[in-house]
């Protein structure tokens, strides 16, 4: 395929072109490159427990008539020590995490790796088509999962070390940093695997990494605050065969160019994204998106967006051709009751004709008591073969991108009820497709939060 026309369109959009409310833009959160087709994806949310507090959560999860599974979690955050333990039958986020900080440095033992630079040696690289702002608004942490022990000594002049097990390899890495600049050396049991230099500031982040076979990857991302809005540019280049050390499956395209623009406004908040990419195999892809968020009277808001996608997002995958989509979302209400309506259609043809996936969604949320909410959400979906349709579902510590295939409907009821003994949250979802049987999922959680002794109230 040729990407030149799309390049022009993407950059016209990108350079010509909203801030995200709590969940606005959630539908644009993309799953990681290595996520399996038609499977749910669970992304961890950062800072799920407030400062100087400890939270205990006990619960049960069930699916259909299968036996219920227990879920337990303990999270705490103090001034110099924080941690969490999650345990659940098939919880993809289960595991323990412990970290601390002191004047001399910080340390953390965790199942997820830190993000150094752009993630080419330590961490995970971002996909060029991902919506970084939507992910930031949802406070998502997308690092690879394994086992990691990390420590840092110093401040402006610092030394960091990482030892861990990722992608079936034991990995050790050292990073020496001076203010914004850093030098990284990463190795496995087979010897030094790569070196890299990085630069990270509020407006500029870049990394250049070189592996032992002299293959390289470089990425630079810059954000410019201008009167016309915030402009972001990302450039990636490198050898076709270079792979990210910790999570090779997420290495993505070897060449990419991306632009993003958004502008804060009292009434109109536009944002746009454009990206072009090329894999080492020569396969290419492109994306251009424009979305406008409008504030309406009585705290209501309307979001309208359109997007065009071309090419592939995975190396050696079947070409999908062009996809055009549009969506509209209305949100309104008060503290007592709120409503969300969303329509979304994607098609093979221009103006989203010849639809391949579509979704209609309505949600109603009612305050049932002070601090208590009842939310009912109903979605009607249709997704053709090979199409990916995922419905985001928000939880206190995670976002689950629920994979929906075929044609059907999904209803979700969630009730949060504060009680003197803690907070109770009950959820029930029912998915019915053209092919029976329908299946149900349910969740019951009890959580109790307490402030740590000596913490300011």
């Amino acid at each position, binding site marked *: 395929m040729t990407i030149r026309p799309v390049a022009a369109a993407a950059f016209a959009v990108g350079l010509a072109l909203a801030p995200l409310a709590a969940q606005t833009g959630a539908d644009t959160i993309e799953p990681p490159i290595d996520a399996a087709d038609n499977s749910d994806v669970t992304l961890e949310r950062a800072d799920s427990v407030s400062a100087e507090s400890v939270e205990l959560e006990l619960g049960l999860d069930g699916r259909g008539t299968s036996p219920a599974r227990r879920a337990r979690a303990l999270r705490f955050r103090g001034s110099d020590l924080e941690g969490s333990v999650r345990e659940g039958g098939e919880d993809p986020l289960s595991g323990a995490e412990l970290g601390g900080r002191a004047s001399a440095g910080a340390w953390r033992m965790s199942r997820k790796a830190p993000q150094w630079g752009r993630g080419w040696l330590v961490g995970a690289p971002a996909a060029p088509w991902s919506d970084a702002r939507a992910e930031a608004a949802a406070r998502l942490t997308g690092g690879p999962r394994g086992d990691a022990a990390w420590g840092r000594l110093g401040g402006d002049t610092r030394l960091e070390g990482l030892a861990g097990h990722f992608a079936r390899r034991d990995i050790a890495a050292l990073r020496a940093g001076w203010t914004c600049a850093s030098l990284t050396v990463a190795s496995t049991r087979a010897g030094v695997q790569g070196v890299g230099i990085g630069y990270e500031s509020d407006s500029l982040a870049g990394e250049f990494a070189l592996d032992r076979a002299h293959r390289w990857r470089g990425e630079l991302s810059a954000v410019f605050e201008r009167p016309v809005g915030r402009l972001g540019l990302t450039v990636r280049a490198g050898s076709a065969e270079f792979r990210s050390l910790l999570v090779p499956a997420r290495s993505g395209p070897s060449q990419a160019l991306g632009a993003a623009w958004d502008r804060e406004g009292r009434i109109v908040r536009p944002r746009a994204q454009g990206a072009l990419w090329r894999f080492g195999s020569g396969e290419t892809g492109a994306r251009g998106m424009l979305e406008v968020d409008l504030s309406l009277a009585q705290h209501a808001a309307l979001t309208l967006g359109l997007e065009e996608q071309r090419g592939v997002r995975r190396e050696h995958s079947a070409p999908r051709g062009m996809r055009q989509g549009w969506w509209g979302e209305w949100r*309104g209400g*008060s503290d007592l009751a709120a409503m969300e309506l969303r329509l979304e259609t994607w098609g093979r043809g221009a103006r989203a004709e010849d639809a391949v996936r579509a979704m*209609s969604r*309505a949600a*109603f949320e009612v305050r049932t008591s002070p601090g208590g909410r009842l939310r009912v959400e*109903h979605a*009607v979906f249709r997704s053709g073969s090979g199409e990916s349709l995922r419905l985001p579902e928000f939880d206190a510590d995670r976002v689950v991108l629920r994979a929906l295939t075929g044609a*059907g409907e999904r*209803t979700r009821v969630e009730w949060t009820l504060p009680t003197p003994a803690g907070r109770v949250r009950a959820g029930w979802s029912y998915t019915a497709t053209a092919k029976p049987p329908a299946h149900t999922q349910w969740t019951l959680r009890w959580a109790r939060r307490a402030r740590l002794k000596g913490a300011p109230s």
Partner: protein
Amino acid sequence: MLAAALLATEARAQEFAVPGASAVNGPGSFLDRGLPDIRASGAVAALDTRWPLDLSERSLMIGGARHGVAAAAGVSRAGSEAFGWSGAGLALGFADRLAAAGIRGLIRRDDGATEFEPHLGVEAGAGGWMRIPFGSVWASAPQAWLDGVAPPLARGLSIGVELESPGVLFSIEREAPRRGIVEGAGHTARLALVWSGVSAWIEARDDPWRGGIGLEASAGALRVATQVDSHPVLAPTVRLSVGLERRARAS
């Protein structure tokens, strides 16, 4: 129930689909779509629906809203003794001046089922509306959950907006493709003119194109409404409703 389904599918008339100029329309809209009506603290309504091929249905419903809680109940009987079904519905929700939402459920008994077929069918769903400047928006998923005998009319998630100006109501509604049916979304537009106690409206639907006209009149507590819906092939469907309403005090 199959023949009735074929008729009802095009007429879009269900047990408690009381005709009215507005989508939120007494205990009928609550039982039929989960949309509570806060305008009446108490209401009772009877509905007679005449489908083509001499098939008819009669319904009786009662409901109201008070102190933020809305409730409605109703019973219906369709068809003849040998070929027909009976239904009983219940709806419960909250109602405020600016927003309301509710859940609705309906159980049907199919008289035409053989001893080897299930006799009972259950459907449950929810709906809600919210005031916006110049009107209201609503969403209704009346058949979010189904079990047993399939209902005569499959219904999908509908989202609508109604705009008001003095003497005029205009609404447009989109119904998502219904479960198990390969189809596109359906759209309905309605324009109503209102003079004191009398309303008249015209309605148009797509896929296939068809229309309807309706008239509603109220005098004191008495309310009478009728609507005629065209059918793409057969004779029109006629609905006639008579009811009594006790208006809620303005808060």
